[in-house]
């Protein structure tokens, strides 16, 4: 046994005054008794000439010496050297991507991580990062084993991808020059090599359990030329035997169809089937007899959008590009009848007035409520598009240039396209209606001649018109659900597992979307009544279904903890607990009341003893 503070052992000298106290005669209350004859063995005779007495070893003295010894040892901080994997600061990166849902992977990873956490002794710092689609720090710089164990135990596999590169970057960000960090990657490796490979100061613990897997990698609902709604189902075979599997289709809680598909190993098989559903219906496809190693990807969801807006009126400055755009969309018709109220307005410059319907606002003066004009910017180019934003799916504005744009500040609108810090396109909500705002005049940009313009315009009009089915296009799990900040009420999101989260009015996205399924988004008005309700579908990420394990390259010898072969584990707390226990025992012995009296005989008589020495009863 070694000590971190051996100087504290000097306190053992306190035993001497303790023993001296036992030997010194103390002042006591004097009581006169008939004779000391009866007390001979119970009391200590005194000699007036000596201030001390002979030391009697009593249980109390031994216990007090033991308590003192234990306290002294605990103060000296005893420790034992142990093999340990934890360094001064260790970041545990837990992959929660869909591929970790392969039977056995995540459970073993969790157990392994808990094993690392159990080695914490109060000296080491541990952080835990959840590596999902949006990596996040679950706990940082914790010395508490229980906290780390709870954080690891609470993690669950999602249905999305893992942004391991971002997770590693987050872990690196937790390091400081004084406190270098080790990264421990609990992952199956992900799909593609990381840009950071080989990763420095990291250790990859692979989890490579594999097994046969069928996955529904696509599900969509489309109307055919005859107007019949057909479900398109695609099933992929990832290493499973070539045999038919049955996909069951359920619409609004009722089984409506069965499909039998036979994908060959490594291939996909697709089929379409008519389903009797209407606008707004949710269809679930699930494999009923797959019994594979990754159950999470055996289900997929799709919803049928409600009909979109059909009547649009362009107000303000007329634009042939806008009219052409509207005419190119089959479900839309443009109207200029002032008596016929349109379902959607496109306001090109000018005063927007009272906005009472979904509106596409183009550089109005003044800007709509929620936007504050701070200036103008010139000669701009698109530098940023919001990742994962549905209205920007397959839309690339990289070549778009703007001669002049308003500079607006907002806490309520969601910028989806920017040039540097200048927002160019924003999504928002005005008077409870969806709204898109362009801070620039399309006539002063080359947007209208970009190939992306028709697609962007169609998506914007579809989004504006399809409030009831907004965000209904399936996205991979983990992709945040965009929310429209109305600034007037809260937003309530119900997850597929039934958990409900209420968010503030200014929150622009809901990131906890790792669980595959249907998310219901309800926008509450000021008096907490549900104003509008939307659906968002997050399906298991198809790229995770293959679940092929991969080794992440790490820089050899860079793992800091490898440079130390052992760490210390202090026992002082246990020894202090022992001391406290001994102290309690000592108190109990010292304060224990004497037992009930035991007289020489019952009553007052001793047995008669006859002259011959024999007793009589």
């Amino acid at each position, binding site marked *: 046994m070694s000590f971190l503070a051996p100087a504290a052992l000097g306190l053992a000298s306190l035993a001497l005054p303790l023993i001296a106290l036992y030997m010194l*005669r*103390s002042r*006591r*209350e*004097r*009581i*006169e*008794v*008939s*004779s*000391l*004859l*009866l*007390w*001979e*063995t*119970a*009391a*200590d*005779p*005194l000699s007036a000439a000596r201030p001390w*007495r002979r030391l009697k070893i*009593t*249980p*109390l003295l031994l216990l007090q010496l033991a308590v003192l010894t234990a306290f002294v040892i605990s103060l000296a901080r005893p420790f034992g050297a142990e093999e340990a994997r934890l360094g001064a600061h260790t970041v545990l990166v837990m992959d929660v991507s869909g591929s970790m849902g392969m039977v056995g992977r995540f459970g073993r990873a969790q157990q392994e991580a808990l094993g690392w956490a159990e080695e914490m002794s109060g000296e080491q710092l541990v952080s835990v990062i959840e590596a999902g689609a949006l990596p996040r720090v679950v706990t940082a710089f914790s010395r508490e084993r229980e906290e780390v164990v709870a954080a690891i135990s609470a993690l669950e596999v999602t249905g999305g991808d893992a942004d391991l590169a971002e997770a590693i970057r987050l872990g690196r960000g937790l390091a400081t020059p004084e406190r270098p960090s080790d990264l421990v990657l609990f992952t199956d490796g992900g799909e593609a090599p990381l840009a950071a490979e080989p990763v420095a100061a990291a250790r990859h613990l692979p989890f490579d359990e594999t097994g046969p897997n069928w996955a529904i990698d696509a599900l969509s609902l489309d109307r055919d030329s005859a107007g019949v709604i057909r479900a398109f189902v695609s099933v992929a075979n990832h290493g499973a035997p070539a045999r038919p599997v049955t996909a069951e289709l359920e619409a609004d809680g009722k089984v409506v169809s069965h499909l039998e598909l036979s994908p060959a190993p490594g291939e996909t098989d697709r089929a379409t089937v008519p389903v009797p559903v209407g606008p707004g219906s949710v269809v679930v496809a699930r494999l009923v007899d797959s019994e594979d190693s990754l159950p999470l990807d055996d289900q997929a969801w799709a919803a049928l959008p409600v009909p979109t807006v059909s009547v649009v009126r362009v107000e303000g400055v007329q634009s042939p590009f806008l009219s052409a755009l509207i005419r190119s969309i089959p479900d839309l018709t443009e109207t200029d009848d002032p008596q016929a109220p349109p379902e959607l307005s496109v306001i090109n410059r000018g005063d927007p007035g009272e906005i009472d319907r979904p509106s596409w606002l183009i550089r109005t003066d003044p800007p709509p409520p929620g936007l504050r004009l701070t200036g103008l910017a010139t000669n701009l180019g698109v530098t940023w598009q919001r990742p994962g934003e549905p209205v920007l799916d397959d839309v690339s504005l990289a070549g778009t240039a703007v001669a002049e744009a308003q500079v607006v500040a907002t806490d309520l609108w969601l910028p989806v396209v920017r040039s540097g810090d200048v927002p160019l396109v924003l999504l928002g909500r005005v008077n409870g209606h969806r709204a898109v705002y362009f801070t620039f005049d399309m006539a002063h940009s080359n947007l209208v001649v970009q190939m992306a313009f028709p697609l962007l315009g169609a998506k914007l009009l579809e989004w504006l018109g399809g409030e009831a089915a907004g965000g209904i296009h399936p996205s991979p799990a983990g992709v945040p659900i965009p929310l429209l900040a109305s600034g007037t009420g809260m937003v309530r999101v119900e997850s597929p597992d039934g958990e409900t989260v209420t968010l503030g009015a200014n929150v622009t996205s809901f990131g906890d979307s790792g669980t595959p399924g249907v998310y219901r988004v309800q926008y509450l008005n000021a008096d907490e009544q549900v104003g509008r309700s939307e659906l968002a579908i997050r399906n298991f990420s198809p790229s995770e279904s293959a679940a092929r394990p991969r080794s992440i390259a790490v820089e050899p010898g860079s793992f800091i903890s490898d440079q130390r072969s052992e760490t210390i584990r202090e026992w002082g707390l246990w020894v202090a607990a022992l001391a406290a226990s001994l102290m309690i025992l000592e108190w109990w*012995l*010292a304060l*224990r*009341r*004497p*037992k009930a*009296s*035991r*007289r*020489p*005989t019952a*009553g*007052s*008589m*001793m*047995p*008669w*003893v*006859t*002259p*011959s*020495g024999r007793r*009589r009863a």
Partner: protein
Amino acid sequence: MLVSPGLREKIGRFSLTGRGRVRSSRGGRHLSVHKGESIDFVDFREYTPGDDYRRIDHLLWARLGTPLIREFEAERELSVRVVVDRSPSMGFHQKHPAALGLAGLITYLALAGGDRVELWTLPGQGGRQAATRGPTGRHLSSWPRLEAWLEGLGIEPAEGTLGPALAAVMASGRRRYTALVSDLLVEDWRAGLDRLAGSAGGMVLHLLGSAELDPQVLGDVRLRDAETGEESDFSGTVDAYDRYRSRLDDLCEQMAKRSARSGLRYLLVEAGPDASERTFAGLAAAGMVR
């Protein structure tokens, strides 16, 4: 009043039983080593001149041709010595009044049985003598005098020593029935009990207070011997009380054996208002009175 009227009425029909035959020359209720005039026939012997001719058995004389005399038991008085301890240790826990009561009980029993009673107290008057002899009596008519003397006894503030005191008592005559009333809480209690050897039976009434039989919880105190002035430190732990009780058991056991070795019987009595009644019950149960 040392012996209550009720107890006197109860014990008036009893007398002490001694050990063996008495040697007294005075008549009484106890069998003597001599032949006498009682109605209890013992033996025949040849007639010698001077014998009472009324005791000649004429039938045997006619049949055997030799005059034979019938002999009978002689009944003599028992000489009882009552020794009361009044050392300072007897001043604790109501032991002194209880001791006087026990002495009165034995005295009354002896007087009621027609025995001669001799009172002693130790230590002696003023502490100058080891023991002091008190009055004597032979009949219940002397009870008031003896009772008054006993009632006049107080605690003698001198260090008590049993050995010399009882040696002085025994010097007045050995073949006597001895009743010692004492707490025996002196260092030479063994020597004292040994001095009583040679008595014509008797008893040791070992008187202890209830607080001595069952000590109260004292805590950490310094104890001072009332007689010797010696001091000891006592820590009121459970172990200490266990040791005390063990010591008390051991002392009582040794005292009982030592008494038996001297021909006396030992009775531990707890001091208290009814100590006399309890003691008489114990004497009767043990056959010490009849």
